[in-house]
């Protein structure tokens, strides 16, 4: 009897210990989240001045981030504009044309791998297929460009959009497909005008998530868009971007540069968090309308 009760006590103790540890693990995770957000907020807000939005990058305290912000917007826009149509079409193919085929399954599988592939390698890939050939064409001037940066970001956004489109289309009830096909509508019209429309908010969520993902990407931009200390809107020109300037300034020994980097980090974090919030809102609104 005594042995039994000590076993019981030990089991209760193990249980209590494990559950306490798991609670502590969660608290630890939340502490890190709070710590990172708090420091970004504190250091970023302290350095946030109107001149960040009006002046272009310059060494010292006079610099702003205007050209980096414009560059980021343009590069992200190029990335999303390339990735969205391709991603939606590829996702539609996976869901509607190749759902149970061998090729479809393998591409779905490989897409999931591309989703977490190292972004720096994708940057080198774009460097090889865009920057190097154009460099050869222009007799040796290294032709980093905003366009190359946009293509690199498109490669990162693509799998996100493919996956969400695929998943959202497969959620559309098949009665809708059967009803449309029985009316004699060709499949391409069914896909473009009925299925994509009814999965629209899900697809928009995917695009917003992809945008959130690529707007924080730094590594692939280092060898594609490179950076530019002047304001430019020409996608064939070198272009600076917010993450790239943050990277450059944070590695700089100057304190003033660090402050600007923090301010940029703050703007970037807010932008990304607002985007993921917006994508959640779009999705939850869609859920309500379906019920």
């Amino acid at each position, binding site marked *: 009897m005594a042995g039994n009760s000590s076993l019981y006590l030990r089991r209760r103790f193990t249980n209590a210990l494990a559950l306490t540890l798991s609670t502590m693990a969660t608290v630890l995770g939340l502490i890190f*989240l709070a710590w990172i957000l708090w420091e970004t907020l504190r250091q970023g807000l302290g350095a946030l001045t109107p001149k960040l939005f009006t002046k272009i990058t310059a060494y010292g305290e006079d610099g702003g981030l205007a050209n980096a912000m414009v560059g980021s917007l343009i590069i992200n826009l190029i990335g999303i504009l390339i990735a969205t149509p391709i991603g939606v*079409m590829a996702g539609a193919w996976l869901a509607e044309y190749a759902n149970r085929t061998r090729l479809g399954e393998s591409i779905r599988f490989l897409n999931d791998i591309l989703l977490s592939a190292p972004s720096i390698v994708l940057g*080198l*890939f774009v460097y090889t297929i865009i920057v190097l050939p154009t460099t050869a064409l222009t007799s040796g001037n290294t032709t980093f460009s905003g366009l190359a940066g946009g293509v690199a970001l498109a490669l990162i956004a693509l799998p996100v959009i493919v996956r969400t489109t695929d998943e959202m289309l497969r959620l559309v009830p098949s009665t809708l497909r059967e009803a449309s096909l029985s009316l004699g509508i060709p499949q391409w019209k069914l896909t473009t005008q009925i299925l994509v429309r009814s999965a629209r908010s899900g697809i928009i969520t995917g695009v917003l998530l992809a945008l959130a993902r690529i707007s924080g990407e730094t590594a692939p931009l280092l060898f594609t868009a490179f950076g530019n200390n002047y304001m430019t809107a020409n996608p064939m020109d070198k272009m600076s971007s917010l993450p790239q300037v943050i990277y450059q300034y944070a590695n700089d020994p100057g304190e003033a540069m660090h402050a600007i980097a923090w301010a940029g980090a703050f703007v970037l974090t807010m932008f990304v968090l607002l985007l993921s919030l917006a994508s959640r809102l779009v999705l939850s609104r869609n859920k309500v309308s379906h019920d």
Partner: protein
Amino acid sequence: MAARLTSGGLLLKGASQRRIVNDRLGLHRLAGSHERDRNHMQANVGAVASTMVQEERAHRDARHDRLFSWLLKGCALLVLASLLGAAGATLWGGRHAFATFGWHFLISSAWDPSTDTYGALVPVYGTIATSVIALIIAVPISFGVALYLSEVAPAWLRTPVASAIELLAGIPSIIYGMWGLFIFAPFFADHIKPWLTNYLGDKPDDGKLSWVAAHVPFIGKLFGSDYPFGASVLTAGIVLAVMIIPFISSVMREVFQTVPTRLKESAYALGSSTWEVSWDIVLPYTRSAVIGGIFLGLGRALGETMAVTFVLGNAMQFSASILDPGASIASTIANQFSEAAGLQKSTLMALAFLLFVVTFIVLLIARWMLRQLAHKEGR
């Protein structure tokens, strides 16, 4: 679609409808009078025309369908092309390095741009060491988080806490890098590193070896360091761990929820505690997916660039100590590629190829493991 229906309706209202009606009643066979015959002929001409229109439309639809599916398939194949392209481009770019150094490349720790000799050992070791440290820290914590969110937390707390943890995954890696560089690395250097070097390392400040460093093999080397700053392999590992915790924990939480309730209820009915149900029922049932989630986190950690570059110190020399600065493949590329030329550039490409292949294999295993549970579920 509306336009199509209307035009179809108009067609039906015309000759073909009459023909269908006539056919059905067999009127044309009974028809004797000229008038009826003429009527019938007119109807037939109309019917042929409309059938042609319909056939043409059917052909056009089929053609469009075919073109459309080719277009879609082409887009889907781009996914394949970009994976193959990334592997091919880095292999092609690294061909000089592979040709020059051969297999020796993998085991050489040399890195000297002045003599153009490069080896992959230091960055490869740094990549593996930081990722393994990140996993050692992140896996138990992620399991704790997933356990808390699926078994311990009160229902009202689950969604907000889960969203907060997932928020961690949304923060750009460069923010982790800055936080690591300016906040965490100094904190680490002031509060954690002295303790580790003095009590575990073989280079303590006062010169007196601790009992652990003197008696447990390897520990002294692992934690010995006289580098005064916070940047180190361990720091990078910790920052990476914070980054991958949300990935691993959300996979774990998701798969924990797929465990059939009757399985858990049976164990509870036999008197199991929450911990026993989690450890002996939930974990074995979801084993393959949990391993998949861990490999997914490993894949992320291996390829992560920015967060690591900021806190790793970027020292291209080999050190056994995890408190010394090091370099990872991604950080080496990020730091040196812009200024590199010739063989150095080729070496960086070769490193990228190695990274890509290793990550690809790790992610392949991850996805395959995750699929095992999905198959068991019948999805």
